[in-house]
């Protein structure tokens, strides 16, 4: 018997109120082809499961220490001594040797306080559907639905496309939060089952885009045109990143592109960069690039919104 189709999900968030209309449940799929240094969910980037470590939850190896003997590869050892915030009690944490770890998950299963967790869970279609349909009364009362997000959900098309289709069959409003950096036929496949695209446009200059995110923006822009031509509805989202795209010129260029997509673009949302997610880099010891910059001021954000509005776009702050 063939193994049942599964999707790799790293989080499911109920009462999601920032990702599309109404009250929504957002399903975050794991893995992304881009490596934006401002990403505030770095655990979404890798397609493989990861061992996530959160020191604030560890109760210390002297009280607990269950994880140490559980590791078949000897990747865990006693780590530094720290003071627990609040109680002030001194505890000894765990040290993870990532080079020996093969993410088997044995330690995480034994770590009750969930200081060690495996990030990335396989869901079958039926399980995931049952999970998100539980909140149907909330969607119905609020004009909400389900948002499929990531990472880049369309990197798991074999799972995500039928998932969207089944949601539509169940009468649920669907939103798809995508980078657009996927093959055109996948986007085409999503079009029929997606009520709203939440579509990131980060930079119109291809070279700058590649330098920051690791990929060129050509495919992204082409796919946006494809959605618009195919009758899709789009909310454009622009993360406003210091010294990357926070100039009038950069934002104006994005605005001009949005205008070129015509009536498909319902709204342009500007998302100010913030660094609240930096803790998450530590959790998976992602040693990749992390942007630590001063967030744009509120006044500056309002200027940029005004700029887009002056072009005739419906623009808001996220």
């Amino acid at each position: 018997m063939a193994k049942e189709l599964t999707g790799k999900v790293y989080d499911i968030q109920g009462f999601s109120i920032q990702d599309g209309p109404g009250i929504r449940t957002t399903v975050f799929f794991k893995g992304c082809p881009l490596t934006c240094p401002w990403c505030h969910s770095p655990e979404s980037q890798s397609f493989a499961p990861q061992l996530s470590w959160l020191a604030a939850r560890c109760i210390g190896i002297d009280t607990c220490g269950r994880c140490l003997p559980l590791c078949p590869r000897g990747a865990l050892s006693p780590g530094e001594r720290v003071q627990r915030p609040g109680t002030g009690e001194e505890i000894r944490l765990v040290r993870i040797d990532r080079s020996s770890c093969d993410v088997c998950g044995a330690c995480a299963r034994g770590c009750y306080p969930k200081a060690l967790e495996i990030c990335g869970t396989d869901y079958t279609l039926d399980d995931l559907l049952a999970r998100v349909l539980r909140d149907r009364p909330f969607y119905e009362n609020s004009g909400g639905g389900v948002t499929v997000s990531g990472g880049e959900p369309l990197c798991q098309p074999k799972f995500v496309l039928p998932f969207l289709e089944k949601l539509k069959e169940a009468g649920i409003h669907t939103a798809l939060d995508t980078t657009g950096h996927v093959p055109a036929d996948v986007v085409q496949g999503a079009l029929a089952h997606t009520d709203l695209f939440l579509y990131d446009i980060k930079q119109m200059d291809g070279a700058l885009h590649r330098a920051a995110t690791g990929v060129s923006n050509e495919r992204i822009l082409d796919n946006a045109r494809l959605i618009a031509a195919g009758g899709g509805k789009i909310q454009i989202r622009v993360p406003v990143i210091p010294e990357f795209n926070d100039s009038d010129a950069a934002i104006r260029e994005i605005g001009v592109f949005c205008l070129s997509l015509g009536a498909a673009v319902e709204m342009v949302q500007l998302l100010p960069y913030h660094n609240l997610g930096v803790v998450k880099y530590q959790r998976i010891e992602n040693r990749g690039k992390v942007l630590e910059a001063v967030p744009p001021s509120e006044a500056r954000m309002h200027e940029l919104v005004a700029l887009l509005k002056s072009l005739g776009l419906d623009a808001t702050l996220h």
Partner: protein
Amino acid sequence: MYVLSPVTDRVAAIREKYRTAKPSICTARYRIVTDYYRENPQLQGILKRAKNFLNICERLPVLVNPNEVIVGWQATRYRACALYPEISFGWFLDELAAGTIPKRDTDPYDISDEDTRYLLETGDYWRKESLSAKVDEYIPLGYFGAAGSGVTYFGTTGTCTSPTGHFVANFETALHRGFGAIRAEAEEKMSELEGRMYGNGAERYNFYRAVTIVSEGMIILSRRYAEECARQAALETDPARKAELLEMADSLGWIMANPCRSFHDAIQCMFLYQIGLCLDAQQHGISFGRVDQYLAPFYEADLAAGRITPERAQELLDLFYLKVAEMNKIWPYFATLSGPGYTSGQLMTLGGVTRDGRDATNPVTFMMLQSSGRLLLHDPPQSLRIHKGTPPELWDAAIETTRIAGGVPTFQNDDVIIPALMARGLPLESARNYCLIGCVEPQGCGDEWACPGGNGTESFFNLLNAFLLAINDGHNPMPAPDGSRGGRVGLPTGYLYEMETFDEVLDAVRQQIEYFVGWHISLVNTWEMVASEHMQLPLLSATVDGCMESGRDVMKGGARYNSTGNAAIAIGNIADSLAVVKHLVYEERSVSARELYDAIMADWEGHEELRQRILNEAPHYGNDNPDVDCFARWATDVYGDAVNAATGPRGRWAAGLFPVTAHVLFGMSTAASPDGRKAGTPLSDGISPVQQMDRSGPTATLRSVSVIDQKKFSNGTLLNMRFHPTALASESGKEKLIALIRTYFDLGGMEMQFNIVSADTLRRAQEVPEDYRDLVVRIAGFSAYFVELYRASQEDIIRRTELNL
């Protein structure tokens, strides 16, 4: 969009005074009452209480402070509280003798040396004369073997620390008829009975006689205030204030004896009657009822006749709210620990439907929210009744108010409450006219004596301790403060490790719940028997529908509709505990019953690993998991059915599920439980999940709590939800919150209130992260557990939170 308008200078000045004045103790009422009781041992029952009230009205100094327009007070100084030794006084004397009252860390009160000396010299008289002492004499003999269970909290001495309270008068009668007409009616009833007191005629005669006396008291009190205003007017040099004082004198000279003529009359009459009720009965959850419904006809008539401007009316309402906020009463120190903040629970109700089922929203509904929002007062609390036709503008105003005023108003669901009240005997029209009492307790407004706190003293029922007794052969596992463990207080249901199936566990729990519901009701019914002799409430009964017809006080069953309320606590804890026992011990068999039993008896000492596993791996109520939510349903059904089937002297009992703040207090004396809770820590709040255990977001929590059959709990349910204010800042955020409440109400929810996270809360979470593990912050699409963020990010969020408010 709903906007707040600025307050007038006068209102701002009084608000400032309110915020800076330290509460103090005034002995004026105490002195009057003590002399009266000592001089009148021959008087008993309702006449003693009626004459006591009249005597207070004749003697209590009247206080008209600068800038005030709405007047009336129970003490001789601004923000001072009166003393009510007739209810219970022992705890107060003990704290006074210890000298802790001005110094205690929660709700301290100033008191002069002279007053302290006087109270200590005279106070002992009340140790035997108070209601609490009288009740102690009537403790049933069998209860000496059941006290100390921690299921019902009645001891065998000092039983009544708080009065009955928890009622609402019929303010419409007071406003539209006045005490002049009420007195005339009572006199007529008396003359019909003169020389014809057959059957219970003498008792009825005395009731009417008491009504004439208290009516006289209200009229005298009002006239004395009129005279004081006139006196101040004569001395006043500012012509504007002089005119205002004369206007006040005119109003006070007219109201009470006569029907109110204006919005000003109506507010003044309502407040002074409330002061009268508090002077008589001690303020304890004495609520105002449907204020917007009483006031709107007066407001609209004044407006149409050009007698008032909206601005002046709003100012009068602000001044009224400031008077209510100023009221406070001293609580025992242990009680302030769980509910600090000088609260007096004078709840107001707004919105909902009219008696004939139409939307009841009116201009005063909005004015009330304005006052709360712009004055930012902790009191008065407000409850907004929601129904299918609640207008969008009212939703908008209410959500904005809850965001700024931090959880005011609470939201109540007409669609669940009205049928629930009908099920306990109210006819449709009366059920539609319900209001909320004290905290969340629904009651017919002006025609029901529902006694939601129980007669004699307020009381709660601890479901978790019923569970603990059930698995501990009827012994309370929590040692007494002196370390001793008492004998068996419950039924001998055996020990957990002797029970072979989970059904045996359920059966044991059911037996203990039903056994203690039986005791609890027996005791409260006993207190009612005693309290209805010594603490009748003729001033209240003068307006409550049914009493004048029947010639009986509310305490004697005179009101048109009757019930007695109770409330259970620790729903989340008992649900989680049952689920843990079922899944770990009887299904997975991963823990033996003996090991789990030993772990909780040892308060988890040496069993931290098991505790962590339970906290983090076991199913918990509040996460939309039917495997555990079913136990919240089961336990509340067992409790609710037992209470609802019981009767008291005046009719049936009504179950409720809310803690006020008892979950903290009672948690202090509840042993460790299988849900991972340690001994002495708070119990879960209302029907909310156990603290830190709702990890699946608000929609999952709401689906879980909807599993409880809430319409069964006509004495009220309480659900507190914590939100970070940024979730409500945008227009679309507010709409989503409204949809959230609506959906919960569609699912059968009765009540919902919000705890808006403040910057102070976040700072506290930094200090005690253990207590705030579930605190989610959502900033610009980013959501995270606050305590798990880096310090710098936490600081950033605190800053954003401050800016947002």
